[in-house]
């Protein structure tokens, strides 16, 4: 019984260590919740089914890029029959809004910050003005 303070103290230290990640994240203001994406108002569909976009939008963008720049294919017929102009700024961002300015992204940047991805596209591809 004389060990009670020792055991309790040990338990407290143990609990503090085990739950450290939770406190750390709470203090740093990060969270494990997925980012709150601002979806385009008044639009229902993306250029491809949303499940595909979630996993493969980078591949689609590379295909667009190769198509437009190297093969001069500048229109894209979507799965739903709609046609889009092949352009990162003029099509994707026209719908999805401001992305490149640090801390102000509506969509791409919000998710990329969360996922720790930093595409270099914005070094050249322009952002939309906020209006």
């Amino acid at each position, binding site marked *: 019984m004389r060990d009670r303070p020792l055991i309790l103290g040990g338990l407290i230290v143990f609990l503090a260590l085990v739950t450290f990640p939770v406190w750390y994240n709470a203090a740093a203001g990060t969270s494990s919740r997925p980012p709150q994406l601002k979806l385009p108002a008044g639009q229902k569909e993306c250029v491809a089914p949303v499940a595909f976009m979630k996993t493969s939008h980078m591949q689609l963008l590379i295909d667009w890029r190769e198509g437009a*720049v190297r093969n001069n294919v500048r229109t894209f017929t979507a799965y739903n029959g709609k046609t889009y102009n092949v352009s*990162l*700024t*003029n099509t994707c961002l026209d719908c999805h809004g401001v992305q490149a300015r640090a801390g102000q992204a509506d969509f791409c940047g919000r998710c990329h910050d969360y996922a720790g991805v930093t595409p270099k596209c914005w070094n*050249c591809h*322009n952002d939309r*003005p906020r209006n």
Partner: protein
Amino acid sequence: MTRKGFLGVTGISAAVLAARKLRSVFAASGPAASPPVRWAMVIDTQKCLKKAGCIDCIAACHKVHNVPEIKDRAHEIKWVWKEPFKQAFPAQETAYTEEAYKGKPFPVLCNHCDNPPCVRVCPTKATWKREDGLVMMDWHRCIGCRYCMAACPYGSRSFNWVDPRPHLRRIDIEFPTRTKGVVEKCTFCAERLARGQAPACVQACKEQKALVFGNLADPDSDVSRLVRSRFTLRRKPGLGTNPEVYYIIG
């Protein structure tokens, strides 16, 4: 089934499969190829010189393509610019041209050569010749080695020594800027041609009509008619690059 029968059936199936394959191969090359295109430009220098000091073509090009204005000549970026006669046509220089063309600069740009030396030296195929003759740039592949700049005898290529964005007074968001470390040049407005529009410089010169753009493979196009009816010069023809920008001098 007898052995002979089995071999017969396999033989016939193989032949049928092979025939199908062959047909699809021929069908793929079947549809008539679209008529040939060879984009080219004719510059009527008399018309151009008539409007002294005009830089409408340069301004239009540099505006739509976000070409920065950098004062330091070592860092400057240019797609279309002007050169004195001596620099534009060194082979045609005589003791009198200096005086004759004093203060009369000629518009110059990428010549979209038929035999482009820049393309031969590019290690990543970031610059290549399209079937329609355009010498295209793929900024995604450019690694900034500048071999193309060394190869181009016309100085048509510029390197981004510094981030161009701070040097742009206004950014046209429709066209991407470039970044530090890539080479750039005129693309005959590939992005506008794809929409059926004339290059921005030609559009800007539509009153003066000094710049004529079109398909040299079409005998009825304006450029074809001009090169057949007028005497034209090309820049540094002796180098064998076969420029596709023609100059009407007199």
